[in-house]
């Protein structure tokens, strides 16, 4: 059997170009499937990891719960609006039902990095009860809640902005670069830098709520002529939700004291026409569900390409057997059995399929890693690419199945080669 395998390998080496085409097609098919599944897994893991420390509930302006969670947990998209600061105060003072409440005020950015107004409670966020705090100051210190225009940089923000403790910056209106190029006059002083948390919050800059409110008040004072800070020329740029003004926050992250308390709080806000409480887990699960539908569609394409790959192997082997009939007849005349010839042909298609499958894995994981890298840079959500052992069994079975199916007819042709007719044919 090993000898048949060696001969199959020799046959492939002897016709590298003809063998390369089906190998490449198999590799592309496997790469497509692998990259889609691995990217989907990494996205899912990335979203789950990135949302881990942010509590069980997010309270914000009524509207789409998914948008609220996306904007306040994953820092994606534009916040849907602001809510009174008193909502936060009520939650923070509700010691019976609320273990932790963290205010978040959005509306400004620092060269594209979101500026988030919050307080010291932010440092209490953690992924589970006994886990260490998700956000820890690694350089300098966290600002004094009573202080003014002090800022702390997220790990990635410090790297991207090239700022460090002691540096100063001026914020710009809007949650993202390009929404409004309207710079505030106040200068923030950086007092600390946070360690890496592997969440989107690594890309943010933090300051006191009071400082954000003050910045916006001064901005309004500077525009007493009636022109809004978001008007450039005659075009008014609409900033969805707007920046949190004095007495407002954009969202409150809430960690209830227990499950029943969590339900109570959710029901309380469910009845409120202007507020909502969204469950990050639920909203993100729905989002992942939508992503999975897309993944399934791409998987179908992957299977289709794999089918085409099988057809390519078949055609390649079919023509190879036609061209090799005399060699097969010689082998038979030297004592090779029909079964041995059949086995050699199947080994050849299997080898083509398996080489393609291995290359496909390398290509697929490479593509997935490249995509994850670009995605994490663009969206600040780390995407952990994992080797999916569960996927291996399916992929190997598929690869072997395709190789076997594609090889059956050519192997049968080889099996039935007429020795005498082909031995003496020119």
């Amino acid at each position: 059997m090993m000898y048949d395998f060696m001969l199959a390998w020799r046959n492939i080496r002897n016709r590298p170009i003809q063998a390369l085409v089906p190998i490449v097609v198999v590799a592309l098919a496997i790469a497509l499937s692998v990259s889609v599944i691995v990217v989907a897994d990494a996205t899912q893991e990335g979203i789950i990891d990135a949302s881990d420390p942010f509590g069980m509930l997010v309270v914000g302006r009524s509207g789409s719960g998914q948008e609220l969670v996306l904007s306040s947990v994953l820092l994606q998209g534009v916040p849907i609006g602001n809510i009174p600061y008193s909502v936060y105060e009520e939650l923070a003072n509700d010691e019976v039902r609320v273990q932790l409440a963290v205010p978040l005020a959005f509306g400004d950015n620092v060269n594209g990095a979101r500026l988030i107004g919050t307080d010291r409670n932010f440092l209490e966020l953690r992924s589970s009860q006994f886990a260490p705090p998700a956000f820890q100051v690694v350089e300098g210190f966290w600002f004094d809640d009573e202080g003014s225009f002090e800022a702390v940089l997220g790990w990635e923000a410090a790297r991207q902005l090239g700022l460090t403790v002691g540096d100063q910056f001026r914020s710009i209106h809007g949650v993202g670069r390009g929404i409004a190029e309207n710079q505030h006059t106040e200068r923030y002083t950086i007092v600390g830098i946070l360690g890496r948390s592997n969440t989107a919050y690594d890309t943010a800059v933090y300051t006191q709520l009071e400082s954000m409110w003050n910045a916006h008040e001064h901005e309004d004072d500077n525009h007493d002529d009636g022109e809004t800070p978001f008007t450039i020329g005659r075009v008014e740029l609409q900033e969805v939700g707007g920046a949190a003004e004095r007495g407002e926050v954009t969202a409150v992250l809430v960690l209830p004291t227990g499950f029943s308390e969590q339900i109570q709080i959710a029901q309380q806000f469910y009845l409120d026409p202007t507020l909502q409480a969204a469950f990050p887990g639920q909203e993100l699960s729905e989002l992942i569900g939508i992503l999975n539908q897309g993944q399934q569609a791409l998987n179908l394409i992957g299977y289709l390409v794999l089918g085409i790959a099988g057809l390519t192997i078949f055609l390649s082997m079919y023509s190879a057997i036609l061209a090799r009939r005399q060699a097969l007849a010689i082998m038979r005349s030297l004592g090779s059995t029909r079964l041995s010839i059949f086995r050699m042909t199947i080994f050849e298609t299997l080898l083509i399929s398996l080489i393609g499958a291995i290359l496909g894995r390398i290509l697929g994981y490479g593509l997935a890693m490249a995509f994850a890298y670009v995605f994490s840079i663009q969206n600040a959500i780390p995407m952990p690419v994992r080797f999916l052992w569960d996927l291996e069994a399916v992929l190997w079975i598929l690869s072997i199945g395709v190789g076997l199916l594609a090889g059956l007819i050519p192997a049968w042709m080889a099996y039935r080669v007429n020795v005498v007719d082909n031995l003496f044919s020119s």
Partner: protein
Amino acid sequence: MTLQLTGINHQYPSPLGKPRQILKDINWDIKGGSQILLRGVSGSGKTTLFNIIAGLMQPSSGTVTLDGTDIYGLSESKRDRFRSTHIGYVFQTHHLLPTLSARENVVMPMVYGKRFPQAEHKTRAEFLLEQVGLDSFGNYLPRQLSTGQRMRVAVARALANQPMLLLSDEPTASLDEESANQVMDLMQSIAEKEKAILLVSSHDPALMTRFTQHANLAQGHLAVQEVTPS
């Protein structure tokens, strides 16, 4: 050890409807160590007879018995193996496998025949190549060898399993005189040494003096005659 052909008849289908009888009631006993030249014009059935003897083509009727074994009484797979271990066949065109080196071509019948342990295959192949004067060409692919060298590799391959019957179909047809003599000397000396039957089919007049037994195939009938070397 003998080769016995009993009542061999063979016919090919004809487009005109009536089958064409190519071999007619051939009975032939050949003793071990015999060296016989099979003669006949083109189309007389020499190659058909060789293929039948080699177990590659079942005759329309009759039996072929080699060393007491009815070749066509064996299953196909057993016959394949029997051919590998008992019969060496040198074809008119060398029929070396182009993807394998000279040594690997010689090893192939040993792998299928399983007469020698696997560990000995390489050594034996090198020994056989040395016998045919190609000891330094083991790693060469057939396309890197001359026509005469290829034929010598084919002879070495045919001898791989120490066959008791060596068939050679028009061995000199594609060779120059010098190469033809080398190949014939080689086959005859090795067959003599191994006490194997050597059957050579040819209509090359130059070979006539090399054999004391001639078998003439004409009109489907075989006539064997002893000749005196000139």
